C-alpha cells in the first residue's frame, strides 16, 4: 500500500484530500457542537437567574412571608411550573425556611452573590440520576429581614438532547467526508485524464512518427509546460534523427564511389590477361581508393566519438603563433607548388589538445591551399580576445555563395560539386573542425567577403 501510495499521484492526492476533509469536518462539527452547547447553557443560566429574580420580586410583595410559610411551592409554580426546579429559602441565621425539593436532590449551596448575581456565580452540580445541575444563591428582602434564596435546576433532558445532537453532527461530518472523498476520487480521475492522454501519445512515438506533436490547446495550464517540453524534445529528436539518417544515407553514398571504382577496375583488369605493370597499376590505384575509404572511416569514427563526448581532451597551453608557424611549415611545399605565400602573425596562448588543435588547423589549411587562387597569400593569424584566443585562416579564392557558407561545416557538404572528388578530400574535414571546436567549448566560424574567405577558430580560456 505504501508503495502504491508513493507511486500513484491520484491515490496520494486523494488520500491527502480526504484527510483534509475529515479534519475540516471534524473541526467544524466540534466547533458547532461546542457553540450549540455553550448557547444552550447560556440560555439555561439566564433562565435560572431570571427565576431567582422572579422569586426575589415575589418575596418583595406584601404578605410574601406568610405565603412562604403556608404555600412554599407557590414560589416554584409561579416561576415556571417545572418539576425539576428547586428552590430553598435560608434565613440569615442559617435556618432553612422552606425547601422545595421533590426528588430530594442534594446540591451544594453556593455562597450568596448578593441581590443581583451574574452567570459567574452559578455553581455546577450533579443530580442523583447523574444529570448536570446548576445552582445559584442570591439575597432577598422579606418583611424587614434578609434571607438567601437558592435556585437550582437539573437539566436531564438537556444531556439527552446534547447526546442526540452529538450523534447527528458526527454522522453529518462522516457523511460529508465520505462524500467529499468519493467526489475527490471522481474529480481526480477526471482531472488526471490529460496526463493519461499525454502518456498514450508518448507511447505512440516511433522513429517514423517523430513529426507528430501533442495537442497543447486542450491541455490544462499546469500540463502545458510538460507538453511543451515534451514537444520540444520530440523536435530535437526529430532533428537529430533526421540528421543521423541523412548522414547514414550520405555515408552510404560517399562509400559508393570508391567501392564502385575498386570493383569496376578490378573486374575489368581481371577480364583479360594483362602485363605485370598493369596489375601493379591497378593495385596501386586500389590502394589509393582504399586509403580514401580508410580515412573516411577514421573521420567518421572520430565524429561519432566526438558526438558522444567520448574523446578525452589533454588540454595544454600552446603558443598560438608557434602552432601556426608549424602548420605553415607543414604545408609549405604544397603551397609552393601553387605559388601560394603563407604569412603568420599575432600572438596569444591557446588552451587546447595539441593533436586536435593541429588536426583542426591542418584541415583548414588543406582547404585553403586547395582553394586559394594561385599566387595569392594565405594569412594565418592569432588574436587574443576577452575570454580566449582566436586563430584564423584567410585566403582569396573562388567566391562562395552566402547560401553555401552556413552549410560548410556540415558533413559531406561541398559548396562546389565539381570539387567533390578533389584528391584526398573526404568531405568531412570541416565537420571535424567543428567537432573539435565543440569539444573545446569553442566555436568555428566562416566569413566571406567576395573572394576573401576567413575561417576562425575561437578557443575559450577555460
Amino acid at each position, binding site marked *: 500500500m505504501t508503495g502504491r501510495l508513493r507511486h500513484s499521484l491520484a491515490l496520494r492526492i486523494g488520500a491527502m484530500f480526504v484527510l483534509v476533509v475529515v479534519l475540516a469536518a471534524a473541526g467544524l462539527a466540534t466547533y458547532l457542537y461546542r457553540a450549540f452547547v455553550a448557547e444552550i447553557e447560556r440560555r439555561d443560566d439566564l433562565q435560572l437567574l431570571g427565576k431567582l429574580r422572579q422569586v426575589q420580586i415575589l418575596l418583595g410583595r406584601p404578605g410574601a412571608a406568610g405565603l412562604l410559610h403556608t404555600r412554599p411551592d407557590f414560589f416554584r409554580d409561579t416561576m415556571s411550573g417545572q418539576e425539576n426546579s428547586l428552590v430553598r429559602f435560608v434565613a440569615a441565621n442559617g435556618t432553612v425556611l422552606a425547601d422545595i425539593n421533590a426528588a430530594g436532590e442534594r446540591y451544594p449551596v453556593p455562597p450568596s452573590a448578593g441581590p443581583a448575581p451574574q452567570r459567574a456565580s452559578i455553581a455546577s452540580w450533579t443530580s442523583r440520576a447523574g444529570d448536570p445541575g446548576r445552582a445559584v444563591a442570591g439575597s432577598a428582602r422579606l418583611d424587614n429581614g434578609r434571607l438567601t434564596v437558592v435556585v437550582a435546576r437539573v437539566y436531564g433532558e438537556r444531556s439527552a438532547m446534547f447526546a442526540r445532537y452529538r450523534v447527528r453532527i458526527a454522522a453529518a461530518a462522516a457523511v460529508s467526508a465520505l462524500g467529499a472523498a468519493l467526489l475527490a476520487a471522481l474529480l481526480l480521475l477526471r482531472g488526471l485524464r490529460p496526463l493519461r492522454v499525454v502518456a498514450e501519445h508518448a507511447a505512440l512515438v516511433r522513429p517514423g512518427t517523430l513529426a507528430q506533436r501533442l495537442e497543447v490547446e486542450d491541455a490544462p495550464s499546469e500540463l502545458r509546460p510538460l507538453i511543451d517540453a515534451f514537444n520540444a524534445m520530440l523536435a530535437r529528436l526529430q532533428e537529430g534523427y533526421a540528421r543521423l539518417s541523412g548522414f547514414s544515407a550520405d555515408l552510404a553514398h560517399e562509400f559508393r564511389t570508391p567501392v564502385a571504382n575498386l570493383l569496376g577496375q578490378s573486374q575489368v583488369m581481371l577480364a583479360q590477361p594483362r602485363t605485370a605493370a598493369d596489375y601493379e597499376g591497378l593495385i596501386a590505384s586500389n590502394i589509393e581508393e582504399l586509403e580514401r575509404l580508410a580515412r573516411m572511416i577514421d573521420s567518421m569514427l572520430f565524429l561519432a566519438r566526438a558526438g558522444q563526448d567520448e574523446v578525452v581532451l589533454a588540454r595544454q597551453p600552446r603558443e598560438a603563433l608557434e602552432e601556426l608557424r608549424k602548420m605553415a611549415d*607543414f604545408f609549405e611545399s604544397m603551397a609552393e*607548388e601553387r605559388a601560394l605565400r603563407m604569412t603568420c602573425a599575432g600572438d596569444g596562448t591557446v588552451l587546447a589538445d595539441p593533436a586536435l588543435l593541429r588536426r583542426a588547423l*591542418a584541415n583548414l589549411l588543406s582547404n585553403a591551399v586547395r582553394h586559394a587562387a594561385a599566387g595569392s597569400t594565405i594569412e594565418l593569424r592569432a588574436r587574443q580576445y576577452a575570454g580566449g584566443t582566436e586563430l584564423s585562416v584567410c585566403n582569396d579564392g573562388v567566391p562562395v555563395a552566402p547560401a553555401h557558407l552556413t552549410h560548410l561545416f556540415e558533413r559531406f557538404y561541398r559548396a562546389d560539386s565539381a570539387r567533390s572528388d578533389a584528391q584526398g578530400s573526404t568531405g568531412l574535414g570541416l565537420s571535424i573542425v567543428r567537432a573539435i571546436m565543440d569539444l573545446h567549448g569553442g566555436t568555428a566560424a566562416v566569413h566571406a567577403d567576395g573572394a576573401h574567405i576567413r575561417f576562425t577558430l575561437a578557443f575559450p580560456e577555460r
Partner: protein
Amino acid sequence: MPILVIEDEPKTGDYLQRGLAESGFAIRLARNGRDGLALAFEGEIELIVLDVMLPRMDGWQVLEALRANPATAQIPVLFLTARDEVQDRVRGLELGADDYLVKPFAFAELVARIRTLLRRGPVREDALIRIGDMEIDVFRRRVRRGAVTIALTAQEFGLLHLLAQREGQVLSRSLIASHVWDMNFDSDTNVIDAAVRRLRRKIDDPFEQKLIHTRRGMGYVCQAQPAATA
C-alpha cells in the same frame, strides 16, 4: 628467430605472413589464440603480432598468459585492433603490449613498427651517411652529391635524414608526417607528396642516379639501387 603472427581472419593472416616474409622476417602463423600460445611456449619466438579479436581465447587472454610465463614474458608484442577505443589501447599497454596498430593500417607502418620493436630496423645513427654518391653530414646538416653541395631547408634536411636513416625501408606518408612534422593524425597526404617532390628537385633531378623512389600505394624509400617499380 621467427615472428609469430596470431590472426584468425584468413585474408589478414595470409597477407601478413606473405608481406612480412618478403620483408625479410621468418614467420609462424597461428589462426587462433590457443595455437598461438602453444607456438609461443615452444620457444624461439622473437616478436608476436597479436590480433585482439580472436576466437576461443581472445588477444587479451593470450597477452596475459604470455606475460605470466617467464619464458615468454619478455617477448615484444604488437597488437592489432579494429576498435580504436582509448580504453582498448590503454588496456593493451597495461597488459604489457609494446605497441599497437589500428586496422586498417599501412603495411609499411607495420613493418616499421616491427623493426623499431626489434631494434633491428637499420636506423643509422651515424654522423655521416653515404647512399650512392650522396653524403649527409648529420651534425653540420650538409648534403653533397659527388662534388656538388646541395643547400636544403631545415624541413628538407629533416625529411632526407629520415629517409636516409632508414635506407631501403619504405616509409609511409603518415610515418613521415609524424617524424618530420610531428603531425600524428591522418592528414592531407598531398602535403607529404609535395614535400618529397621538392626534395627530389634538389637531390635527384639534377643527377643521373635517383636516390628517392616512390612505392606507389606504400610510400617512399631511399636507396641507391634503382627501385623495382618506379
